[in-house]
């Protein structure tokens, strides 16, 4: 039986840091600064990094991923080597990761810090990657004696506004958990005021991963489950409102969506928890996934309300909400009022 990865069981054993400078594509006059050994990790900092990883993977930005066999990124090989060597190959393999990151970055990418961790989750080996992106300054200094970065400096960077974004990936040997995915990733903005678009560059190009499930299928499942959930309400006006909300949400100009965001933005609090439990039963996750409306495009463009007397009202996106006034009557029926010119009858 597949085991659930429980992030509360994460233990951080070893940690190593490499610094990746900003550079133009093909400009190798600058080089990454590699640690030659793991950084020393006092208990307080061990706890700090564990909590940062847990918080990231608990966030709405968390996404289950698989290695894409068609991707040329060698990072999965390095990760697997760290996992299978019980973290013994952490130094060598993490340097290769940093080298690859440096090679694929171009002038568009800001300077970054790559933190690689070997540890355990559910008592089994895991490799955790944290990438910090900095817009400016605050260069880390490599200790010439230990040939490693001071991990406290990394913590300080994560707590200041100098680091705008950090990305986290946690990977395991999926066969030992009998699961279908290789890991879990999250893109986070440390400063919520930052409007920078979070791309999938880290997941796709660097890690060489794709979402566990095809976004077309996930989006359709989200639509189908949510629609079925909405139909469980007795109140037709609430059903109409939530259906319009779902259609609007799916047609918003965003690349990623989530059941959590839909619930937060549109549902009443007590309905949110019922929705959460409903999706939990269906094993559908609340966190974010890439949106692809291909399979549902036709369904979300119109809304149809059919009455018991066989009269139906069909409205296009946005028009229903604006032009149809619904009112509950004491006998349990609903009054629908449309004030407009008749355009056609057929």
């Amino acid at each position, binding site marked *: 039986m597949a085991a*659930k*990865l*429980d*992030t*509360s*069981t*994460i233990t951080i054993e070893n940690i190593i840091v490499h610094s990746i400078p900003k550079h133009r594509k093909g400009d190798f006059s600058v080089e990454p600064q590699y640690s030659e050994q793991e950084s020393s990790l006092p208990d307080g900092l061990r*706890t700090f990094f564990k*909590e940062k990883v*847990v*918080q990231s*993977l*608990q966030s709405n930005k*968390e996404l*289950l991923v698989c290695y894409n066999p068609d991707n040329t990124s060698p990072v999965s090989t390095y990760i697997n080597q760290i996992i299978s060597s019980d973290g013994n190959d952490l130094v060598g393999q993490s340097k290769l990761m940093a080298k690859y990151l440096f090679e694929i970055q171009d002038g568009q990418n800001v300077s970054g810090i790559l933190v690689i961790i070997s540890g355990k989750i559910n008592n089994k080996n895991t490799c955790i990657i944290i990438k910090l992106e900095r817009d400016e300054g605050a260069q880390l200094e490599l200790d010439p004696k230990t040939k490693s970065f001071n991990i406290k400096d990394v913590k300080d960077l994560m707590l200041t506004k100098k680091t705008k974004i950090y990305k986290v990936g*946690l990977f395991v040997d999926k066969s030992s958990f009998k699961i279908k995915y290789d890991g*879990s990733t999250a893109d986070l903005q440390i400063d919520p005021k930052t409007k920078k678009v979070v791309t999938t560059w880290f997941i796709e190009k660097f890690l060489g991963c794709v979402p566990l499930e095809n976004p077309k299928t996930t989006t359709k499942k989200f639509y189908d489950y949510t629609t079925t959930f909405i139909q469980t309400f007795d109140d037709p006006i609430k059903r109409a409102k939530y259906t319009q909300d779902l259609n609007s949400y799916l047609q918003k100009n965003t690349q990623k969506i989530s059941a959590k965001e839909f*619930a*937060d933005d549109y549902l009443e*609090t*007590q309905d*949110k*928890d019922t929705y*959460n*439990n409903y999706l939990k039963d269906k094993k559908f996750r609340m966190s974010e996934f890439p949106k692809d409306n291909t399979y549902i495009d036709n369904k979300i463009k119109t809304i149809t309300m059919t009455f018991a007397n066989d009269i139906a009202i069909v409205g296009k996106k946005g028009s229903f909400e604006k032009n149809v006034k619904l009112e509950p009557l004491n006998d349990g029926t609903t009054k629908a009022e449309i004030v407009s010119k008749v355009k056609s009858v057929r």
Partner: protein
Amino acid sequence: MANVQEIVDLWKDDQPKYEDLGKIVSSFIKNKITDYELLPEVQYRTKELVSIIKKVRKKQAEKEYSYQHLKDKLGIRIICTFQEDLGIVEKFINENFVVISVEHKKDNLDFNRLDYVSNHYDAKIKCTVTEFKRHATFEDFIFEIQVRTLNQHAWSNTAHSLSYKRETDLPDKLKRKVYRLLSLYELADDEFSSVNKALKEHQENITYTLLRKLEGKFYKFAKTDYDREISLLDINTILNYFETDDNAKQQLINSIESFIVTNEQKIQRIYNDNRNRFYEILSLSQPEIFLVWYMLQNHPFTIKDNWANDFDDDDLEQIKTLWGNEL
């Protein structure tokens, strides 16, 4: 007669050993008895040399008796809040110690005896218990464990101060006064027990019912006491998040204990990993943390949407981070 110098020499040699054993046993009891969802007061003492000599002399006057016969050179005392806790402590003692003899003194007391006394166990450490394995040198040391209620303890201390020894020494009028006092202590224990039982079953005050359900579990994991006033306030606040949804409240009351039991390993790990961080994660030192974890699992939106009105958002984030999530 007792050879005083022999006792002095023997005790000079033995006292430090019994002192060490006292530390080991009392620390074990304090740490382990919380698994039985109790948090009693635990004390130990080694006997004073003078008391040893006096006791040996006194016993020798009645029968053949020597220093070696003394079983209370080390005395451990466990003081419980309620009478019903005594049975739980007895179970704990039987499971973790080699019990040589038991005396439930109250059962053997004539109705007209002026006393209100505790349960006594002559015991040795059980070396199969993990925590005692490395203390096998103490395997044959016998000591006494006294288990009593707070009222038995209060009676015992007061009676000791009054220094009366035998009922026959007292005039009838005074004897009657002592009887009346004694009955108050016994009655108090009975009444505390029945109030405790009634409050546990009292469903109308849902906040209190919930706290009583959480308390024992909290002792088990946190191994410390908590602030009841804060708990009652917090629980009441959180329960109000359900507004009129009485079904959800009832469901919570019915399933909170099984939630804790189902997640026992996880909760134990969280407490073990963070035992020295109570000062920075204050919620770990209050039983309502179980309620918050339950809510995060079963009513995440209800708690998140309301939390900021009453508490600090960072606290919820901290509690949530401790719990983690399933990927």
